[in-house]
């Protein structure tokens, strides 16, 4: 089981390393958006709440643009049939989920300092913020993975992905934005319930996705 999972993850990283699709798309989007916001505000300070909204919107669209590819690539290139005959559906799901989580957390490592530096944002509750960002990233990656599988199997494209993902990710974005606003504004702010919600959201979503994925993946 573990060897198979590792081989699947390794395979996806080799393909990503050679094509650099998710990385290029997500980083380009984040870079252009951050630069655009910086130019539009012309150095004027924004309220912490506005920064929180902009920051998570950039994260959301970076995830939607980059992480979708993990499943649509399989359908577009006709490799999904090979994968279906080679690997059990549960292992396909888990490996793609782990790939998306690792990929998105790495992207957050690049996007977060970029946003904070270019827009000169001061984080007053640094520890809470540093825990909140990966917790939100984990939830976004979990949601993106199963939605990407659904969109890929329905023959849809990125636009459909963003539309159907919105109701699902709305609660997590709401919590992440509100908590980020507090972390930027209030010194020594720490609310474990927000972190718990994001982690529980990811956990529930992964559990349901794991059970449903074979039906999404195999049935035609």
């Amino acid at each position, binding site marked *: 089981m573990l*060897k*198979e999972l590792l*081989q*699947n993850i*390794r*395979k996806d990283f*080799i*393909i990503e390393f*050679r*094509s650099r699709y998710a990385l290029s798309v997500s980083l380009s989007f984040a870079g252009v958006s951050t630069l655009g916001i910086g130019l539009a505000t012309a150095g004027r300070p924004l309220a912490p709440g506005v920064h929180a909204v902009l920051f998570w919107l950039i994260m959301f669209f970076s995830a939607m643009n980059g992480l979708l590819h993990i499943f649509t690539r399989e359908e577009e*290139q*006709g*490799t999904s*049939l*090979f994968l*279906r*005959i*080679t*690997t*059990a559906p549960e*292992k396909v799901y888990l490996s793609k989920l782990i790939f998306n989580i690792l990929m998105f957390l790495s992207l957050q490592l690049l996007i977060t300092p970029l946003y904070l530096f270019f827009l000169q944002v001061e984080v007053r509750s640094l520890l809470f913020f540093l825990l909140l960002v990966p917790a939100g990233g984990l939830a976004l990656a979990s949601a993106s993975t199963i939605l990407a599988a659904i969109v890929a199997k329905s023959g849809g494209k990125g636009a459909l992905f963003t539309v159907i993902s919105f109701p699902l990710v709305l609660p997590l974005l709401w919590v992440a934005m509100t908590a980020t606003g507090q972390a930027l504004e209030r010194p020594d702010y720490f609310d474990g319930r927000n972190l718990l919600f994001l982690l529980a959201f990811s956990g529930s979503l992964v559990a349901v996705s794991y059970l449903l994925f*074979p039906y999404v993946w*195999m*049935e*035609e």
Partner: protein
Amino acid sequence: MTEDSFSIRADSLAKRFYRTGIFRGISFRLERGEALALTGPNGSGKSTLLEIIAGLQRQSAGSLEMAWGGRVLGRSEIFGFLGFMSPRMNLYGELNALEIIHFTSACRRGPEQRALDLLDELDLTRHGDKPVARYSSGMRQRLKFLLAVFADPPLLLLDEPGSNLDRRGKDLVYGMIRRLMRDRIVIIAANEEEEMNLCGRRLALA
């Protein structure tokens, strides 16, 4: 029935896409050492039937049962017992043959050394480290055949195994199929007479 005997029984299989019927009333039984050629014009459902047997699609009606040593296999278990190739199935163009073999070998628990021997037999060893995207269609077809057979599955489902192959490639692949069909079940979706002649039985889809 021996410990490792594999058998398939299909009764009145039918497939519809929405309201369009593809085929119906397909029945057959196969035991180890038997080979069946699925014949019929384009669009008659040969590839679809092969994918139903492989567990990749569900039939609209009828029953399909596969047994190993007398035990009926569940749908999720079937994959461990079959080798499959199809023109619809593409390999990862960014990976080279050795990487794909390594990946498949780990996932299907097939012996990697056997795959490397077959790579040599199919005259692909010198292309082993070349990305599959740079392979010719015939080379890709030979690699797909290798991946279908190297784990020694008791059931081989081959959709047009000779397509895109030159004469030498066909001789190599058909020769291997003849050898392999002695101790397993082989089902071939065939458009060419030469492929049909490999099998002892034929099933015509209208």
